[in-house]
């Protein structure tokens, strides 16, 4: 198991009138190469939770293990952890600062203290991975389109060659085309490089297609951790948390209520299509 959380709590502004229990008693483990979807309503503690994974926030109490080591142990190298657990924040394009796209992506590996050639090689590789062409390498990052900027920012994290990639709503504010591009790239990284992916999202459709397991957060608590099929079968409970199942889950449930014999655990459009075709053939 790559990442283990053991009863992790975090309280913002502890001891003042503004104190807020952001995450409560969170325990889970994530295996190497898994694709985890993290869903929850705004303010449910998702962003706080992921910032614990690379040590940007220190838990008020509880333990976190990465590759078997307690990250809060004395002398544990947090900077090294941050290179192993890549975190892409929401709207990551807001962190771009260099004069060219290439220089910006080199920033991460340079901070790791690698030699120049290695840094540039990694940056080039990372930019290729996210599909940024050679013609854009010398462009200013501020001239790119929204989707391109975001891909550059993701490349900036990928260039550090992390083992785990955490993305906080990587598709927020993009058009449908840019959204599909990014998700496709992430799925590709997961498939080809064996990266562990933790994807925070609002879109249930996105996550149903890709994630091995779903983590559902509500008011700072981790209330469900299971496969998409199991989680979405609890769609009534999800609604109470201001979440929803994918559209097809609703379609299948309505069909079932009308007396058709369909399997309601279809979560993707393809699965639903199969089910409905099967029904029609009889």
């Amino acid at each position, binding site marked *: 198991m790559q990442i283990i959380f053991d009863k992790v709590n975090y309280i913002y*502004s502890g001891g003042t009138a503004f104190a807020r229990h952001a995450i409560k008693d969170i325990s889970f483990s994530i295996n190497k190469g898994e694709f985890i979807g993290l869903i929850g309503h705004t303010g449910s503690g998702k962003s706080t939770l992921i910032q614990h994974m*690379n040590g940007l926030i220190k838990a008020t109490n509880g333990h976190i293990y990465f590759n078997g080591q307690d990250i809060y142990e004395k002398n544990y190298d947090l900077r090294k952890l941050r*290179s192993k657990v*890549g*975190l892409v*924040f929401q709207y990551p394009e*807001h962190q*771009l600062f260099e004069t060219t796209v290439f220089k910006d992506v080199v920033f991460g590996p340079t901070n790791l203290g690698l030699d120049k050639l290695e840094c540039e090689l990694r940056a080039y590789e990372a930019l290729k991975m996210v599909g940024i062409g050679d013609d854009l390498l010398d462009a200013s990052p501020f001239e790119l389109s929204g989707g391109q900027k975001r891909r550059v920012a993701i490349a900036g*994290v990928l260039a550090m060659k992390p083992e785990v990639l955490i993305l906080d709503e990587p598709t927020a504010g993009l058009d449908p085309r840019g959204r599909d591009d990014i998700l496709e790239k992430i799925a590709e990284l997961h498939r080809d490089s064996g990266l562990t992916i933790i994807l925070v999202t609002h879109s249930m459709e996105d996550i149903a297609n890709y994630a091995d397991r779903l983590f559902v957060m509500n008011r700072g608590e981790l209330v469900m951790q299971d496969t998409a099929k199991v989680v979405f079968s609890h769609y009534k409970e999800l609604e109470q948390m201001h979440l929803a199942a994918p559209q097809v889950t609703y379609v299948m449930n309505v069909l079932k209520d009308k007396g058709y014999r369909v399997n309601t655990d279809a979560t993707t459009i393809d699965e639903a299509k199969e089910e409905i075709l099967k029904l029609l053939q009889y």
Partner: protein
Amino acid sequence: MIRDITIGQYYPSDSILHRLDPRVKLIGTFLFIVSLFLFDSLYGYIAVAVFLVTIIKLSKVPFRFIAKGMKAIVVLMLFMAFFNLFFTPGNTIFQIWIIKITDNGLRQAIFMGIRLIFLILGSSLMTFTTTPNQLTDGLEKIMKPLNRIKVPVHEISMMMSIALRFIPILLEETDKIMKAQMARGADFESGGVLKRAKSLIPLLVPLFVSAFRRANDLAMAMEARCYRGGDGRTKMKPLRYQNRDYLAYTCVLAYFAIVIALGILENRLF
């Protein structure tokens, strides 16, 4: 880390002080600051301390919270105490080599320190109990007469409230960008002055970009709602004095009179 600064912050609570008209608090704070320099005797300090403690009790802001804000000025206090202690002429009471402490120096260091604490306690109490919006509303109303001599009072107060409104936003943004760059291995803490200054570039460039972007968006949003300055603009909640405000004015003036009286008395007596 940045969130620990409590000076100038608003502390939400429901006290008589929170409900007072911001003009009362502004004028009261001004009188309080002036009053600190009108006396030089122990009785004066006691009078101010009594007044302050009463106000703090009334404000329902926990003392722990206020004290946390005072940490920020410890350096300034030490700096001032140092200069007062060693560079005030008077009768020497203690001397090592060329460093000497005089009776006047000691007195100055202690009393100036106390005055500074009073000053900061008093003025931060105003910001603890008044939202930035109320504050600028109050200022605008107080300065309104200046409109006649062509001072753009409304515009100034609008700029002030926007600036104040943006402080927490920019703090949050700084925190976010800092974390994002730390996630890319940036190091803001170690190294010499030059290296540290250089390490701020990945923080400052995105911060400025975002500040400009936000300013642009805000200007656009204001324009879209037909904002065109203060002429003929009315308020949803116009400021009107209540009975409690007159009562507060009376209390502040009484306090001011007492301090002045003490100041005059001490001149006569000592």
